[in-house]
């Protein structure tokens, strides 16, 4: 289960929104560290479990903050798209965000997203065996993935997606099924979350053209067959 005091880093430039979300998240039982700029946010990552990141920031924008957090680690990121703009969503997901919410943020929606990403990081599958798929080694117990013996740094969402797909090699999973299984989005999620995450995952573990995660046009994705 999610720890009662998960640490949320809130990066939001508008003081009223920052205060409002700070209040709402605190009441939901999170420890909240609220900062104004991307630079302050990058300096305050220690001990943080999840980042809630506004994309429209003065100075370093949210996309850049996203990329920098991704470059150094696998911390879950939930972005807040100020406009709900389709371009922003795609760019943010490409920059490495795990999920997004649209401004004005409903605290209940944000809470559900935070719980979902934290669950991805915390849950172990309970399995202990190590699977091998070609060059790829997936340790389901330790939640470690190696490629040609080298550990690959995957965000919790990327790891969950890989575990979900590789759990049934050769079986096609639709985007909606993956959204439900990995993102807890129910039926009406945004399938671009899946597409963007597959792209990031491929860039870390796959070759070109993809061997492990294959696109089945019109249906979804499939792990292998190798």
């Amino acid at each position, binding site marked *: 289960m999610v720890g009662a005091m998960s640490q949320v880093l809130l990066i939001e430039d*508008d003081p*009223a*929104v920052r*205060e*409002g*979300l700070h*209040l*709402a998240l605190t*009441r939901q039982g999170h420890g909240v560290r609220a900062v104004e700029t991307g630079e302050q946010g990058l300096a305050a990552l220690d001990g943080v479990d999840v980042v809630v990141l506004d994309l429209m920031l003065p100075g370093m924008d949210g996309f850049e903050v996203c990329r920098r957090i991704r470059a150094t680690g696998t911390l879950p990121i939930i972005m807040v798209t*100020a*406009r*709900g*703009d*389709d*371009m922003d969503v795609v760019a943010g997901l490409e920059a490495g965000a795990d999920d997004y919410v649209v*401004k*004005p*943020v*409903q*605290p*209940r929606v944000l809470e559900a997203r935070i719980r979902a990403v934290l669950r991805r990081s915390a849950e172990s599958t309970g399995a202990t065996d190590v699977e091998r798929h070609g060059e790829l080694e997936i340790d389901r117990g330790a939640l470690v993935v190696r490629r040609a013996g080298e550990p690959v740094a995957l965000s919790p969402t990327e790891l969950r997606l890989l575990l979900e797909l590789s759990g049934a090699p050769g079986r096609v999973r*639709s*985007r*909606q099924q993956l959204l439900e299984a990995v993102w807890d989005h*129910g*039926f*009406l*999620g*945004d*399938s*671009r979350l899946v597409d963007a995450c597959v792209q990031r995952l491929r860039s870390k573990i796959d070759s070109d053209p993809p061997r492990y995660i294959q696109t089945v046009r*019109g*249906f*979804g994705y499939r792990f292998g067959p190798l």
Partner: protein
Amino acid sequence: MRSLRARLILAFALLGGLTAAAVAGTMYVRARNIVLEKAQSAAVAAFTEKVGRMTVLDPDELSDRDSAGMILRVGRPPDGSLGLDVPADLRTRVLGGVVAWQRVIDGGQPVLVIGMRVSDVEFYTSRDLGAEEDGIRQLALLAWLIGGCSLLPAAALALVAARAVLRPVRELRGAAGRLGDGDLGSRVEVRGADELAAVAETFNAMADKLAKQVADARRFVADVSHELRTPLAAMTAVADVLDEEAAALTEDAGRAARLVSRETHNLTRLVDDLVEISRFDAGSAVLTLDEVDVAAAVSATLRVRGWSGLETDLAPVTARVDPRRLDVIVANLVGNALRHGAPPVTLTLRDEPGRVIITVADRGPGLDPAVLPHVFDRFYKADTARTRSAGSGLGLAIARENALLHGGDLHAANRPGGGALFTLRLPS
């Protein structure tokens, strides 16, 4: 005569006809005079020469037997040997001592009668002008024929000219019609530098200005909506706190807290819808198609919003649609039916070749025929005095925009048994 084409053709035909008639008429008169005068002078010259030769004889010996004429002693009555009457004024002039002639009609034929007096003898002769008259008649016929034939090319020219004028006019009309129907990109091609080209240029300039004004107005709405979002984001974040604490407040403060919370959510929805419709106006709405189990998606739409008690008939259909947009459409249609119609609300899903069809019907009073064409208008209120409804006033407009974005359509009508019926068609 209202058609410009007909008027142009008539004008060209009239012009052609009048010109042909004037040319042919002038030619006819001129040719006729020349031919007749030539025949007359020849006849007169021959007559005077002949009379000159005859007068060397004794008048008493003169005989008209070989002269095809009549010879009279002055004062005697005509003896009929000419075969026709000598007009009285011709005889008067002859008696006056001049060589005179006159055309008369004898038995329907034009005849020239020539007379002269030498001392006390009058000489008359006649010459049939039938051959000349025939020639002239043929000339006249030919003139009319040529004039008539020239009408055809005149009409053809008129058609060409009419087309040259009418094509730009027709294009202009089409462009203006499209502009009126809301196609702000409607323009006409400017050809040449004539008056019609000037009209086309003016039209394009007008359309540019109109498009700019509309774009400005829409951008303003979009900007305002975005500006409203930031304070709303702060209010939305804490609205739940008000709800949760309302019970612990005094009665008035609690009611006020709930009111602020509820209206914050309503305002948020209105601004969300404004931003959404602005995105359609700006053309920045993007379709994210996916292979979707439509029946499951529609069921999820109802489940997520806690709507139950609907009569559903959902065929198992899979289609390539944008699931989020499908959710928006169905939610708006069902929400509208639940708010304005009477239960039971019926939701059906079926597929036809190439498309899926979703209908939402209710058993309420249906839509007023006067309202029907405006159902999808923004902020359209069936009753101007009606108070603000629970919806933003944009729901059906957004639903329709989403249907159009899919390349489908959304149609409103009344059920034969009463109640409103909305039909959504999406390409599968």
